[in-house]
């Protein structure tokens, strides 16, 4: 019994990603087709060259037919994947394992979400018949309980914590402003961030991820075949996943200052990839900043900062795009937007661009490091699923 991982056995050889936005004029099919065509082109293949497909969507459609119909895939194995907000990452994980197992030569993961057809702001879960006792809080409310708990545990005053969270939002807006595919392409001052209307607890509008439509996709092949498709493959070093038991909600020992599922997934990923010092080995990290306190706590769960110190590192600019370890250089969920099923693959897309030196010049990270991390979570504090990957440009 062990988590062996598939280090260096699978490579990403093509990716595509639509702009994330309120695409009033585009259907789910339009978004799927755009991301898929770009990905086929990047890998130099056609849809017929792909042996199997995994399609991630949280609630824009059901079954593999949601992908097979718009792409007109005839008779291919197409599977729909759903795992809360980690849906896109899970599509890639499934495709990568399929190739690593030898079952297929070429597999594709597509993630897409059409959020803005509901007529409501925010994300709304698909209603499942129940006894009426399940909580009905928004995600913002659940995550809003993290900030005061963190502040209390580590002695960070309310005003100081507000400054820290605003700094995270400010950074992600700075990064998004440079990114042509991001939903929000405006820099926002910390004053504006702090003055925004409250959504839940002390969280304001600028503490929350953008809600957008979008799609992203990746094609994976065996590592030894990668150079047939591209000169610059991105190798999968680690894929890890951890689902909590939900006991955090009912266990008095859980204190809302960390996400055990994320810490476990990170530990497993580092072991698979052979990483011992993530902060100094990673070129960049894309993390699931659904709310600003989430990103703060993740810096510790992912081992980028010691427990109780991430808030100081945030203020010191450690995670800025020009800092020691750039976090969410593409703008993150905050300003790139969060079409649930696409977000996990969007994170890989940023790693794909940055590690291959293909980000637009003004936002390209210049570094000798060759590894990138993506972190994707779903659910709430106490009841969460978490995904961590490490990818790199070199074998070994």
């Amino acid at each position, binding site marked *: 019994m062990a988590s062996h991982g598939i280090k260096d056995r699978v490579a990403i050889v093509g990716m595509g990603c639509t702009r994330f936005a309120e695409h009033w004029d585009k259907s789910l099919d339009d978004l799927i087709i755009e991301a898929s065509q770009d990905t086929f082109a990047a890998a130099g293949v056609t849809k017929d060259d792909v042996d199997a497909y995994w399609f991630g969507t949280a609630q824009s459609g059901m079954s593999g037919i949601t992908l097979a119909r718009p792409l007109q895939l005839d008779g291919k194995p197409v599977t729909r994947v759903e795992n809360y907000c980690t849906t896109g990452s899970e599509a890639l994980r499934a495709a990568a394992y399929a190739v690593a197992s030898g079952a297929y030569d070429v597999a594709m993961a597509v993630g897409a979400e059409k959020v803005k057809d509901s007529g409501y702001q*925010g994300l709304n879960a698909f209603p499942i018949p*129940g006894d009426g006792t399940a909580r009905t809080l928004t995600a913002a*409310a659940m995550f809003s309980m993290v900030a005061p708990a963190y502040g209390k545990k580590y002695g960070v005053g309310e005003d100081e914590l507000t400054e820290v969270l605003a700094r995270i939002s400010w950074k992600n807006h700075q990064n998004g402003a440079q990114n042509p595919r991001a939903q929000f392409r405006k820099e926002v001052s910390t004053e504006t961030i702090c003055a925004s209307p409250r959504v839940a607890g002390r969280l304001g509008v600028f503490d929350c991820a953008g809600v957008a439509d979008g799609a992203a996709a990746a094609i994976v092949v065996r590592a030894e075949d990668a150079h047939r498709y591209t000169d610059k493959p991105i190798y999968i070093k680690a894929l890890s996943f951890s689902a909590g038991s939900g006991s955090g909600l009912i266990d008095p020992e859980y204190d809302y200052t960390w996400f055990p599922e994320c810490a476990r997934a990170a530990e497993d990923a580092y072991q698979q990839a052979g990483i011992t010092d993530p902060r100094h080995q990673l070129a960049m990290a894309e993390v699931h900043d659904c709310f600003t306190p989430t990103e703060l706590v993740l810096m510790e769960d992912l081992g980028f900062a010691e427990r109780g110190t991430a808030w100081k590192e945030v203020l010191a600019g450690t995670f800025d795009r020009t800092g020691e370890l750039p976090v969410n250089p593409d703008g993150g969920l905050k300003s790139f937007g969060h079409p649930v099923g696409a977000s996990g693959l969007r994170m890989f897309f940023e790693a794909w661009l940055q590690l291959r030196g293909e980000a637009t010049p003004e936002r390209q990270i210049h570094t000798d490091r060759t590894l990138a991390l993506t972190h994707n979570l779903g659910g709430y504090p106490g009841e969460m699923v978490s995904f961590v990957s490490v990818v790199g440009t070199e074998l070994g």
Partner: protein
Amino acid sequence: MRGIVSIAGYVPYRRLQRSAVAQVFGSGGGKGTRSVASHDEDTTTMGVEAARLAVRSAPAAAPDAIWFATASPAYLDKTNATTIHAALRQPTHVSAFDFGGALRSGAGALRSSLAAAGTGTTLVVLSDLRDGLPTSADESAGGDGAAAVLVGDDGPGTPVIAEYLGGASVSDEFLDRWRTAGDRRSKVWEERFGETRYVPLGAEAWEAALKTVGVSADQVDQVAVTGMHGRAVKALARKLGVRDGVLADDLTTTVGQTGAAHPGLVLASMIERAEPGQVLAVVALADGADVLVFRTTDSLGAWSASHTIADQIAGAADLPYGKFLSWRGMVTPEPPRRPEPQRVSSTAAWRNEEWKFGFVGSKDRSSEAVHLPPSRISMKGGAVDDMEPVDRADTEATIATYTIDHLSYSASPPIVFAVLDFDGGGRFPLELTDVDPTTIEIGDKVAMTFRKLYTADGIHDYFWKAKPVRTGGSAAGGGAAGNSAAS
């Protein structure tokens, strides 16, 4: 000897200052306050709260039947008493019946149970929500509340604190007040007509009752006259022939007239103030008159109210008139732009009856970890199917952390939500109610309260919320009876 084994009133937390009505409309209203059920309360939930208080003061009593009377039932066709039955975690052999529709059903249920000697112990629950169109007399004079009376034969475990000496009822068919099914408001005939009917009917019943029990008017120590016809109530009270100071506060200036619940509420209020050996009487005017006469016993000395009506009146908070109108559906404020909740699954609710209605979780026998809701497999150690039920409805809890959600769907946003750590073990995140969001602090104590979360497709979603334990009267007891329910 048959009589009252325990009794309690429940008055909701909110009050409407009657003067607020004229400030908005230029007319209507009056002096004093009226009680207002929260947006998450109905006659069933208020009945549950009153019943919990009554049962808590008589922990050894086991009801054989639950009778529920209201003129504002949450459901028609479906019995509301079964919801109370479930919330009180009663076994299936305890019967549950509704006395529905008429205002008189409250007094009628009470008198029927008291007169039925040898029929075991009956928990009689009276509850009502009263209002009318804005500026109407019914809107101001009405009140919301419930009362629960545990009626039984004197015996071990069920000492009678007030013996039922007897009573009288007179009935007459005349139209003073009426409401057809589906109508939002009641209508009344010219007031003078009702007064000319009620005063002689009340006097007739009063005389007959005193004669039956062999007590003269000047031997009565406390009497309350109650009814929706305010002028008739006042006129009859003057004609009873009782000593000065015997006429009890009918709670109309503070709580308002709570309709079908009111005979029980004023009776509870009198018993809370009574000494052993006193004669108490209730006169209820509705489509005739009902008189009930009691003598408190020595057992009253050993009995105490779980949460007195006086404390509930003192521990209230004002509600703006606009909120009152929106909670009663008289105006519709903009709802949060979120999807409305889906209806509750009947089958899922039934399977989880103990949890949903009784707030019963489970405790792992080996690790003692408490699971809310109950779980088959333990979160600590993984033991399978080795759990025992654990009641938490009567257990206080401490706020571990909390938040205020401005976006979630609610009949009265924002939602205040707290992570609660229960005394004796167990954690559950739960909505707070009857609370001012600006006064909550981590570490505050809360008690459970049975509420209606929402209604969809005509199905009420009943579950538990938590409310602050306020000084000056425990909101949930926590005395011997409260603790005995927790394992």
